[in-house]
């Protein structure tokens, strides 16, 4: 449910949308999402999962095979793209190469008809907003990738849409610029207060920018949650594995009693995990690598297993340690390099891998 403190209706509501393409490819299956006004909302999933199709349905470039889309309370089924209260930043930016920067930004204002006297001022204002003041007369060919993206942003924002759609806006930029643009997009969204819906396959991007994230896989909506919730409490194996790294264990449910779930994990034996409600059927258990710690002796207040260090990958801020037990169970543990000394000392030989039972996730899907 959308948590809108003011109790306003959602700006976007997607009701049971399915989309199949000719040839029987099912791109989206029964998707329902509501986006609150002013939210920074991300559609996250691997490439080809249907998230771009969903965005294009919002923009009006695809029509759903089933279901409805409401934007700002209006059913969009029969509304053409040029009459929708949304604007889009395209993956290729789609900045018109035969127009100057200013002409690009002004285009949306001109084709709408009506009063043209205010256009130059509004264009200048939009360019200032994206920190491109003074670039109006340039040709898009003279701009860098980051600048081109800002033009695309200005061109969409100048129309003051109810919703701004962004299709993989950062994928064409190099790593450093991408990080800077993440912050920039968040700043921009806070400044203009427009609802942003962004499509991305990059979990870091989604986690660091969005208020809420919808994870889509093979056309199905798996989970809609805040970044923290999504990372710490994924509900499915796919989400757990797709976002961040995860140690996954399969096991047999031995029953739930007194707030404790007992699971017989293949190769590790019985694990007792705190749980809230009764869980039946086989489950998967998952632990984040950074929640695991390495000890040279067995700690008593945690789940602990003896394992041999196979391989160590030093990665600067952290070191990834790969271990295995005699029964062939693999662990990946990430150790934060809090000091130079800690970084230099690497684990080796036989150690204990341990974590707090409360950091164990129970996955039913």
């Amino acid at each position, binding site marked *: 449910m959308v948590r809108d403190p003011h109790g306003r209706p959602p700006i976007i509501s997607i009701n049971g949308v399915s989309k199949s393409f000719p040839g029987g490819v099912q791109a989206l299956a029964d998707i329902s999402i509501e986006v609150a006004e002013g939210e920074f909302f991300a559609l996250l999933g691997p490439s080809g999962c249907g998230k771009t199709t969903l965005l294009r349905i919002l*923009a*009006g*470039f695809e029509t759903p095979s089933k279901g409805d889309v409401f934007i700002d309370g209006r059913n969009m089924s029969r509304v*053409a*793209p*040029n*009459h929708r209260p*949304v*604007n*889009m930043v*395209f*993956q*290729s930016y*789609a*900045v*018109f*190469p*035969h127009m100057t920067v200013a002409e690009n930004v002004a*285009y*949306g204002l001109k*084709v*709408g008809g009506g009063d043209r006297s205010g256009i130059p001022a509004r264009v200048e204002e939009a360019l200032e907003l994206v920190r491109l003041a003074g670039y109006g007369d340039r*040709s898009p*060919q003279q701009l860098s990738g980051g600048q081109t993206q800002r033009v*695309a942003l200005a*061109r*969409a924002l100048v*129309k003051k849409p109810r919703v701004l759609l962004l299709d993989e806006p950062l994928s064409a930029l190099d790593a450093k610029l991408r990080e800077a643009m993440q912050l920039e997009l968040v700043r921009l969204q806070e400044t203009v207060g427009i609802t942003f819906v962004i499509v991305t396959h990059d979990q870091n991007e989604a986690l660091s920018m969005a208020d809420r994230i919808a994870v889509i896989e093979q056309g199905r909506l798996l989970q809609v949650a805040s970044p923290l919730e999504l990372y710490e409490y994924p509900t499915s194996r796919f989400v757990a594995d797709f976002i961040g790294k995860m140690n996954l264990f399969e096991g047999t449910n031995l029953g739930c009693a007194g707030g404790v779930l007992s699971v017989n994990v293949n190769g590790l034996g019985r694990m007792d995990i705190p749980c809230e409600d009764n869980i039946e059927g086989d489950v998967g258990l998952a632990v984040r690598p950074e929640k695991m710690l390495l000890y040279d002796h067995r700690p008593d207040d945690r789940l602990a297993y003896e394992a041999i260090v196979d391989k160590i990958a030093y990665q600067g801020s952290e070191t990834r340690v790969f271990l295995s037990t005699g029964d062939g169970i693999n662990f990946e543990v990430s150790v934060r390099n809090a000091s130079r000394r800690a970084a230099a000392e690497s684990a080796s030989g036989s150690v204990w891998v341990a974590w707090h039972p409360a950091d164990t996730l129970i996955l039913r899907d």
Partner: protein
Amino acid sequence: MSRRAPPGPLDYGRRLWLRFSLWATFLFLYAPILMLVAFSFNDSRRNIVWRGFTLKYYEKAWNNDSLIEAFTNSLTIALVSTVASVILGMMTAVLLWRFRFPGKAPYEGAMSLPIIIPEICMGVAMMAFFARIGWPANLPWPLNLGAITIAHISFSFPFVAMVVRARLARFNPELEEAARDLGASQWQSFRDVLLPYMRPGLVAGGLLAFTLSLDDFVITFFTSGPETVTFPVKVYSMIRFSVTPEVNAASTVLIAITLFLTTIALWLQNRAQSS
């Protein structure tokens, strides 16, 4: 002193025999044309020995009324055919680029027929067609060029379509979607985004159509009557009689026109690419 380094293993371009074959080919391609141009200025009727510079064959060609008439006919036909071919070709290109429709593959095949079938086959088909429908023979100028012009449009516009479609293949469809997204109607996005994008293709296609029309002999030969002689047909009949420097002069003018148009086309293309 820097000595030139010996060619590297992949420096085939610097190997002598390869360079030699390249220049020999260019000699083969250009010597006849250069000869033709040179002898249009040679003050001698048949000998190939240089006897001094003269412009008298140009004067003769200029005063040859039937040659000038043929030239005017050719330019008129080429102009009309180019305009029509660009419009029809553009429509074909957009149609094939944008739409899925039943029977598209055979449709494309039919559209490429004028490009692939031998000229002679198209020539006789046009001849038979216009004879069969009883195309009037005694129309006043320039209507009497109608049959030739129609034939020229038929073989030119698929070429324009091909050129424009090749350009459209690299069009980023998001550009048109962006225009629609910003509030443009279908017509506005076509006019403001697709048309400017196609322009270099339209210009290149137009110049191609113009050259094809100006160049065509075979198909025109079958559709022209005694009253509607084009430049190539006129030159053909002159050659059949004898090889004269007058023909050289007229040919040189035509070569100059084609060169000029080609240069413009390439210049436009370069400008479109660099901007």
